[in-house]
């Protein structure tokens, strides 16, 4: 097994569009790295550059100690699972799984052995002679993974492999991918725009935005210690509450609201106060008031949405915030709930650069 190294990798299209603007990354052997970001951020492009499906404009990609910039996709020793499975429709499951091995001129009995082994591991052994169109979405996804496994590659690449599945299956497959990856101990890169998938699967997460890595680290590290406004707002569901504020030397203010307990902030620029929904608490003594618009019951917990009284968002409208509370927190619509939060658990960002100050 070997890791993957990216050294100031760039991708510029002939029309001048920059998809990847210099990425440095060290992926350790056996690690599962998730690239996460909004659509169009370049995460898939970066993955496809590792796969060899996109050329590398500048920089270097190494698998182990081997520079693979100019190595053809099939010789990079990587296997990829595609979003829409990309199974060969006219071949049986067995044919799909063995095609890559046949092209490598592997002996027949070795192919047979590997296919059977992978099929057993993925519980698709009873489908080996079926065509892909006779399989359900989940089964097709397994076949696509089987096709990757039989190759026994140094690196697995997953390009949003679960986005075509329904919610229940997605959770199930997510767990299986994680287990499989643990068991096989293969370095893996997984691309998704789903932050739950990202948080649950990753050993480390790379949040990508506009062709750059915003922050890379363990999922919880990104959650509790985001370096930028983008990372804070992208990681965490429900989304972090963001309040536009300014600092006057002693406190942060928005409209008629004031937040104390903050110090050493610049006074000459717009700031953003970020408070996670679970950091807010219902507190009869609290200093803020929320007018309840909607309560979502998620079973174990409730999400209360409403307008923060006295505060205004950037457009001057009511500022909608979300509070995560226990399941017995069931306020009536339009009632006012008092809230409080611990300033030390809140984040403060510069609005213009997105940089985190506190």
């Amino acid at each position: 097994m070997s890791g993957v190294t990216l050294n100031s990798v760039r991708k510029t299209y002939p029309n001048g569009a920059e998809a990847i603007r210099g990425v440095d990354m060290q992926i350790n052997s056996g690690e599962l790295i998730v690239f996460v970001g909004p659509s169009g951020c370049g995460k898939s492009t970066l993955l496809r550059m590792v796969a060899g499906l996109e050329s590398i404009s500048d920089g270097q990609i190494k698998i182990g100690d081997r520079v693979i910039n100019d190595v053809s996709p099939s010789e990079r020793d990587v296997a990829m699972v595609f979003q829409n499975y990309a199974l060969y429709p006219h071949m049986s499951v067995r044919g799909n799984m063995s095609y890559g091995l046949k092209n490598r001129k592997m002996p027949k009995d070795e192919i047979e052995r590997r296919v059977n082994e992978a099929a057993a591991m993925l519980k698709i052994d009873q489908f080996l002679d079926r065509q892909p169109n006779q399989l359900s979405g989940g089964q097709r996804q397994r076949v696509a993974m089987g096709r990757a496994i039989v190759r026994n590659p140094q690196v697995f690449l997953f390009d949003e492999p679960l986005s075509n599945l329904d919610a229940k299956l997605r959770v199930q497959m997510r767990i299986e991918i994680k287990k499989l990856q643990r068991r096989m101990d293969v370095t893996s890169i997984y691309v998704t725009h789903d932050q739950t998938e990202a948080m649950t699967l990753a050993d480390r997460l790379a949040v990508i935005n506009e062709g750059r890595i915003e922050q890379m680290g363990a999922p919880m590290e990104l959650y509790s210690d985001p370096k930028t406004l983008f990372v804070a707002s992208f990681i965490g569901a429900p989304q972090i509450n963001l309040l536009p504020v300014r600092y006057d030397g002693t406190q942060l203010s928005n409209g008629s609201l004031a937040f104390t307990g903050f110090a050493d902030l610049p006074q000459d620029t717009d700031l953003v106060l970020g408070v996670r929904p679970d950091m807010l608490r219902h507190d009869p003594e609290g200093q803020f008031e929320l007018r309840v618009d909607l309560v979502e019951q998620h079973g174990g917990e409730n999400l209360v949405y409403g307008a923060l009284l006295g505060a205004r968002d950037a457009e001057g409208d009511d500022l909608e915030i979300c509070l995560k509370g226990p399941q017995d927190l069931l306020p009536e619509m339009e009632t006012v709930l008092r809230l409080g939060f611990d300033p030390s658990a809140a984040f403060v960002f510069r609005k213009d650069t997105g940089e985190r100050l506190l």
Partner: protein
Amino acid sequence: MTRPGITTHLILICGAIFMTLPVWVAFATSTHAPETILREGLQILPGGHFFETYKEVLFVEGGVMKKVTATTMMKNSMILGIGFAVGKVIISMLAAYAIVYFRFRLAVPLFWIIFMTLLLPLEVRIIPSYEVVAGMGLLDTYTGLIVPLIASATGTFFFRQFFRSVPDELLEAARLDGASAWGFFIDILVPLSKTMIAAILIIMFVVGWNQYLWPLIMTTKEENYTLVIGIKQIYQVLSEGGELPQFQKAFALTILATLPPVLVVLIFQNWFVKGLVESEK
């Protein structure tokens, strides 16, 4: 949907009769003795000379032409039809493959040039084509008969459209699986295009079978005549000879010439329809 009424049926029946009656008349007439035809004209009811006429046309030397029988002409037509269809499919698939999957300069202009040849029927280039084939000494050969006809803008266009609808991920998966350019074509694209190939083969077989002008100027010897040429020649012979005109044989030849295309379409019509409407990949 409401059940089609009696008027609908009437119109359909009239249309069907209008289309098939001439064929029937040709068949019915072909089963009569030459004297009957000469005396009474075209016949609507079958006569008693079916086996006699067709045997003579198909198997007896001098029955229709001086030397060749309809069987030989049918063989020639078959070779032309099949060679034409297979050649067109191969050439146009390869052309479409190059245009769709290989990024080379001029790919788009080249495609449009190929496409524009649709505007130029064979008749426009028939003299130069003849010159080339004659210069290469290919007159009266199957090669000369088939090769100049097989470049196909229509086929290239159909395959191009089809290949463009094949998802890119398949190509990418195949590249990761180590398939070469040929490997991807043979292992993935050709099997995927099966129904498309069948449809084009059928259309092109019929077109090839019905070729008239090119075989006419290409073949000088009787043994190279195709059925379609044979029909033309037999009418000529009929009007020139001093003997009793053998109209029944001319009609028999016509019927024989229509049979193979009809059979091909009947037998393969399922594939044909599938190929034309197929959208599932």
